[in-house]
């Protein structure tokens, strides 16, 4: 079924861009596509365009060079899993598990993303233009200077930041109408590290038992300003307008909320 070789064109001679390679992914299985990507990256290719992507999983997995990958189509689950350095741009929507245990690099999604975005990520940045599904940021973690960061332009479904252990989650709610709040429930359930910033209304009952609400301090605003600046660069919108609105900061009340649960 997947026996055909990819049609590949190196366009460096045509456009003057260095080492840009186009890959037609239509007939490639996820194993073949990722093997091809590893081959290209180790041969020193700097930019790759993937066309006709229909659900191949794990795209970009374990690549460890700062290669730029543009994806046209709908990449499959676990996009960028375990990757360490590449910059992936999705011209469309992402499915579930995007950024799974990602170590470093950047994923920019010009659409929406499915469930468990950035699960267990331990570094890198993810930007989503529109909404995200259930459990975005689940169990992200941080260590010293490694701080995974997820910035979402739209709103989120339930269990946003579930079991979060570190990193930064930003929810901008840019597509909420006047007077409309986020509708996610169980936000930050089990959270025990990191920080969540939400723009737009959120009610007390929507929050998990393990999170506290705080006003933003100067450092928070500095962090947000920088991240929103990057967000607006990716998606071409005005940062100042976004920053004018009120933000809510959610933080974990305990670092080990279940520390005594099973220890009698």
């Amino acid at each position, binding site marked *: 079924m997947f026996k055909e070789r990819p049609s590949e064109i190196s366009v460096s001679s045509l456009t003057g861009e260095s080492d840009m390679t186009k890959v037609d992914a239509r007939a490639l299985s996820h194993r073949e596509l990722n093997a091809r990507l590893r081959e290209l990256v180790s041969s020193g290719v700097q930019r790759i365009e993937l066309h006709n992507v229909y659900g191949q999983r794990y795209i970009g997995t374990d690549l460890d060079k700062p290669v730029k990958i543009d994806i046209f189509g709908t990449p499959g689950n676990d996009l960028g899993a375990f990757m360490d350095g590449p910059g992936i741009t999705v011209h469309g929507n992402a*499915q579930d598990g995007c950024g799974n245990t990602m170590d470093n690099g950047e994923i920019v999604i010009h659409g929406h993303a499915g469930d468990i975005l950035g699960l267990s990520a331990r570094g890198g940045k993810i930007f989503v233009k529109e909404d995200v*599904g*259930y459990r975005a940021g689940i169990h992200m973690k941080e260590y010293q200077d490694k701080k995974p960061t997820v910035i979402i332009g739209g709103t989120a479904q339930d269990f946003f930041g579930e079991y979060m252990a570190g990193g930064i989650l930003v929810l901008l709610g840019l597509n909420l109408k006047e007077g409309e709040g986020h509708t996610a429930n169980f936000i930050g359930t089990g959270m025990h590290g990191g920080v969540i910033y939400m723009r737009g209304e959120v009610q007390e009952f929507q929050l998990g038992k393990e999170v506290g609400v705080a006003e933003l301090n100067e450092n928070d605003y500095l962090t947000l300003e920088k991240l929103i600046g990057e967000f607006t660069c990716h998606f071409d919108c005005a940062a100042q307008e976004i920053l004018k609105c009120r933000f809510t900061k959610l933080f974990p009340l305990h670092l080990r909320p279940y520390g005594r649960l099973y220890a009698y």
Partner: protein
Amino acid sequence: MKELGRINNFYQDDKVMDACSIFGMMDTAGRRFSGKKVVEAIANMHARGNGLGGGFAVYGLYPKYANCYAFHLMYLSRAGQARVEDFLRQKFHMIYAEEVPTRPIPAIVNPPLVWRYFLEVKSEGTCGQREDDYIVDRVMEINTKIEGAFVFSSGKNMGVFKGVGYPEEIAEYFCLEQYEGYLWTAHGRFPTNTPGWWGGAHPFNVLDWTVVHNGEISSYGINRRHLEQFGYNCTMQTDTEVIAYAVDLLIRRHGLPVEMAARILAPPFWSQIERCSPEKQKIPRTLRQVYGNLLLNGPFTVIIAHQGEMIGLTDRVRLRPLTVGVEGSVLYLSSEESAIRLVCPDLDRTWIPIGGEPIIGSLERPFEPAVTARGTSDMAISNRGYAKISK
């Protein structure tokens, strides 16, 4: 002891990380189409299954015999077939019978016999029972009393084709390219805790209800016992079977609207109910109290179909995925968006519904061709109601 796995398989990549795949496609304007796109879409999610089950349900399948009950039967023995045919002749007028055409392919090993029968209920034959109840009882009788015979489907103008194999192989085996319908559902199976056998492949059916399912029903035991009180016997050794019988009971026999049935299978949490006004609490409270035993616990995404309607539903904390796409009058439901995009790159809308919210396509309310710009996507998140999708 040596850990041989490390030597034989250095990357430890023999572990199968899968889930079932489900796909549904319905033209709400009622136009019939071939299964080509459906097979292409479900085959695109090949990696989710493991070849131990694949199947399809097709509606608008037998217009020539539209008023007959179309029985698809699987036989494990010729003796079973002879006994079923005697039984059917005794209980029904048999208008037409034939073996379901198949083509031998290497992937399909040791298939059972599959036959179809077009049946009419004898006017004097139901002893005052409703015709559809009579059919359900006869299906249960075959499944529980006749050795080596199982009913794959038993509705009018529809049929189920299923077996052990990848769905694209099952489609090839049953020559599905030769059929047309206005509503198709498809399933690729990754059996978790029940055997991968022909009867256990999805869709599950009774009358014209079919269910394809990704997930597992931890409440199977209590659901099954509850349904047994109403004459439904589980014989297919797979949890999904209870969903087919539950929707038959709730929607057909108890006459509940789909939205209400969805709130029984995937009810709002008590904490959500308690935040409503006392007046608004009445219905969800009553449903949970009366039908508590039909609450489906555990992760699930299902596509439920019957004559004229296709319904997508996930569990209330959405532990399994569902993406919706709409293009013109056609509704797509899929485990993954990529499968929809493959067969329909230019969708009017695509979104991910919240847990417990049913997505309904119906011949009674066909979607209008989109007047808005194409390619915009948004998720129906803000709507926590149970409204049908409207354009």
